[in-house]
């Protein structure tokens, strides 16, 4: 074997136990030699070795065949028709070829190393981490000479100004992060105020409730008992609002109607509904998933993300789950034409908590 001459020979003389990390071992390893070598089938039986060798080169030839198949499949299954079935066949068969080719190389290589290559154990001594004393002295000497010749320690002005320059050069990069936070402008004074943005939605007094996504206004008389209607504020259309998705994410509302005797609004919110019709924010107060799994007989509203349950008949109070607050209610009334309109914006920020929420 190749371990007869000792590559560490010249270092062994200076090997010493590490001075600071010594641990008193009461139960040192008793058997620090290798376990007895166990012969494999391929070592004992030449026929087995032959079989293993055959397996390995068969796998490598199989890999070649699979690569050829992948190229052939690319030609045999064209995707020019554009049909999904053709694309699927092309991807499937080319992919199978490539996967089989790579897998066969891997399996063959590992089988080669395990069954055919020598598996005799040997001990390779650990390299000493501590350098020889002469090496260490030479290094210290080199540093001292460099310091002396460059004047790095002596010419403090040059050294300090260089450190200042390096530190200052990082600052412009940090400054660029300011661009990530928008700033208010006379046209849009609240753009830089996330607390304001999280606390206000498109709803305001008199905004009509309309169907998502058609935008058709909703008459109170058209809502049957047991209905659930997905609602957006009037005017929230992709072409009309610049930050459409942000506004929609805050303003979405679920409107339901139940028999008036089953509705028990919380104190002070008795006039927020109309004849059994109530509207609640669809944004979960836990982490903001859309809550819309409404059960019309139990009046339970289930959030699909973390199973928070709200009771719509009792002001959307939390029945179960991680949500900490009821869903914010949108106060609604009916205008002169019989359409449902908002009395005001939500009285609290919709969605999950944030630091400045009071």
């Amino acid at each position, binding site marked *: 074997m190749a371990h007869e001459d000792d590559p560490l020979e010249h270092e062994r003389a200076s090997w010493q136990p590490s001075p600071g990390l010594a641990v008193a071992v009461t139960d040192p390893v008793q058997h620090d030699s290798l376990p007895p070598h166990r012969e494999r089938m391929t070592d004992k039986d030449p026929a087995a070795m032959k079989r293993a060798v055959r397996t390995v080169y068969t796998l490598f030839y199989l890999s070649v065949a699979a690569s050829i198949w992948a190229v052939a499949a690319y030609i045999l299954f064209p995707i020019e028709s554009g049909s999904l079935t053709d694309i699927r066949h092309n991807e499937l068969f080319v992919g199978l070829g490539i996967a089989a080719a790579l897998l066969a190389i891997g399996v063959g290589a590992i089988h080669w190393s395990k069954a055919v290559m020598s598996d005799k154990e040997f001990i390779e001594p650990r390299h000493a981490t501590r350098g020889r004393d002469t090496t260490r002295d030479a290094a210290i000497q080199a540093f001292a000479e460099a310091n002396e010749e460059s004047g790095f320690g002596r010419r403090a002005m040059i050294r300090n100004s260089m450190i200042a320059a390096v530190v200052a050069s990082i600052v412009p990069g940090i400054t660029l992060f300011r661009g990530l936070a928008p700033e208010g402008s006379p046209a849009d004074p609240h753009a830089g105020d996330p607390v304001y943005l999280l606390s206000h939605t498109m709803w305001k007094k008199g905004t009509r409730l309309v169907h998502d996504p058609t935008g058709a206004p909703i008459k109170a008389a058209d809502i049957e008992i047991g209905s659930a209607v997905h609602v957006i504020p009037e005017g929230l259309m992709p072409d009309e609002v610049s930050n459409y998705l942000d506004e929609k994410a805050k303003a979405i509302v679920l409107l339901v109607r139940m028999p008036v005797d089953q509705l028990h609004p919380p104190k002070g919110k008795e006039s927020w509904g109309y004849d059994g019709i109530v509207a609640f924010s669809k944004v979960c107060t836990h982490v903001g998933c859309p809550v819309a799994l409404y059960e*019309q007989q*139990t009046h339970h509203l289930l959030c699909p993300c973390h199973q928070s349950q709200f009771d719509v008949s009792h002001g959307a109070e939390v029945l179960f789950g991680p949500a900490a607050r009821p869903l914010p209610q949108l106060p609604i009334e009916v205008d002169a034409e019989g359409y449902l309109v908002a009395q005001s914006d939500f009285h609290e920020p919709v969605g999950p908590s944030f630091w400045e929420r009071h």
Partner: protein
Amino acid sequence: MARDKKRRNSGRRSPLAAAVLIGVGLLLTGGVYAGASAAMAATNDTSTQHSSNLTAEDGKKLFQANCSTCHGLDLQGTENGPSLYGVGELAVEFQVSTGRMPLAAQGPQAQIKPAQFTEDQVRAMAAYVQSMAPGPTYPSAETVDGKGDVANGAELFRINCAMCHNVAGAGGALTEGKYAPALNQTSALHMYAAMVTGPQNMPVFSNTNLNLSEKRDIISYLLYLQQNKSPGGYGLGDLGPVSEGLFIWIFGIGTLIAVTVWITAKSN
């Protein structure tokens, strides 16, 4: 004997033999069970006989014999069942044709089971309930023809239905044992009936909420899903991260562990 001797001579059995044996056993059991249940389903398929047309009067007798224990002799309802005033003929069609009614047992939700009545009997009971207190009626053939705008139907389905029924119509769980059923077997008529009548805990989607053309689009989308195979291959029940995550954790990571064990094990 000869075979035994040979095995002992070769003196080795792959460590994977046990795993392979269990796998083969599971596959066999599963295969036999799947075949048997398919055969059972085939024999249970009730062929509806078309007898003479029954009238609302016959429907009244059927209702009194089969439904009035819970729903009352005059549809007024009892402690065990709700009043049927105003539910309409379509509610009868939906509940009875899908086997949900008569209820097998009180529970969180009525279960789908083989229908207990012929189509004529269902129609007769529907006519009786409709004559007592009218409600939603059978739709026109056009509404359920499945030739609407599939893309618009898909958008409406995602907004109004997908949160419970799953975007691929595979169904999903609700609270306290209730669930939204899968829609991959539902007929167009029953999709329409469910929307307008709001069976059990499903909200009502009346024609003022989703109009007839929108309902037609939604039905077309669901029929399209039923008739077209997913181009992505096997969908694992279309249940999303639950079934897909389970698959990758068990089989994906399981394979990785098996390969790691094989790579690091000493050759025999």
